[in-house]
């Protein structure tokens, strides 16, 4: 018997987004807030979701926090991330992104520990393995 696993969604998205926005987001996209950081940056985490057709089609709720030195920079980083996310559907080594939908985007949410401006966006992402055998 062989088991088919859903793709590592965070790894897939962070890798694809960093390829897409490298020239425009000096601080890059991370899975957690980095100890030593350059701004603007983004932190992407999975915030739940559901297997639509387990174990094949996965719908994940994804939170993207965009940080900047100013509110304008954080807003621009958030807009950049949303544009890049909506451009993602396609085939990747780790899986296939079929759709991205806004859930609650560009929420003004300052970050108390760092005092940095931050915008929070939540999107749904649909993804499935690259092939029936992967």
């Amino acid at each position, binding site marked *: 018997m062989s088991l088919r696993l859903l793709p590592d969604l965070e790894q897939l998205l962070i890798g694809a987004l960093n390829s897409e926005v490298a020239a425009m987001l000096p601080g890059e996209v991370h899975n957690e*807030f980095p100890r030593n950081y350059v701004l603007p940056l983004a932190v992407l985490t999975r915030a739940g979701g559901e297997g639509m057709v387990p174990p094949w089609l996965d719908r994940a709720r994804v939170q993207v*926090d965009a940080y900047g030195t100013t509110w304008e920079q954080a807003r621009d980083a958030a807009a950049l991330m949303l544009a890049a996310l909506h451009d993602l559907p396609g085939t990747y080594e780790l899986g296939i992104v079929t759709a991205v939908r806004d859930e609650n985007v560009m929420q003004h949410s300052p*970050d108390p520990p760092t005092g940095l401006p931050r915008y929070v966006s939540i999107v749904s992402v649909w993804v499935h393995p690259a092939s029936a055998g992967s």
Partner: protein
Amino acid sequence: MASRFRPNTAGILAFGRSEQMATAMRRRAEVVRAVAESSAPFDPEDPDGHFRDSFEVAVAEDRGVAVGIVYTTDPAGAYIELGTSDTPAHHTLHNALAAAGLRTRG
């Protein structure tokens, strides 16, 4: 013979803001609040009060129809829900909505 259906838009809107609809929305919001209370993080020694006990329910009108609202009165609620740079997001209300078969409006 083909027949044509013409929805009564005014009637649909009137039903959407009726007392019965408001009652139905409040019931659904109460379900979401119960789920949120059962799953919220709880620190019995928190001197600032408890996030778990901070949820309120209301009914309002949005775009002409009744809607149920569940919200927190905890000043730290947004940071518990969405996290910070050093604390993971808990998504208490989002997950309560999902558990009730509902979703946030995008």
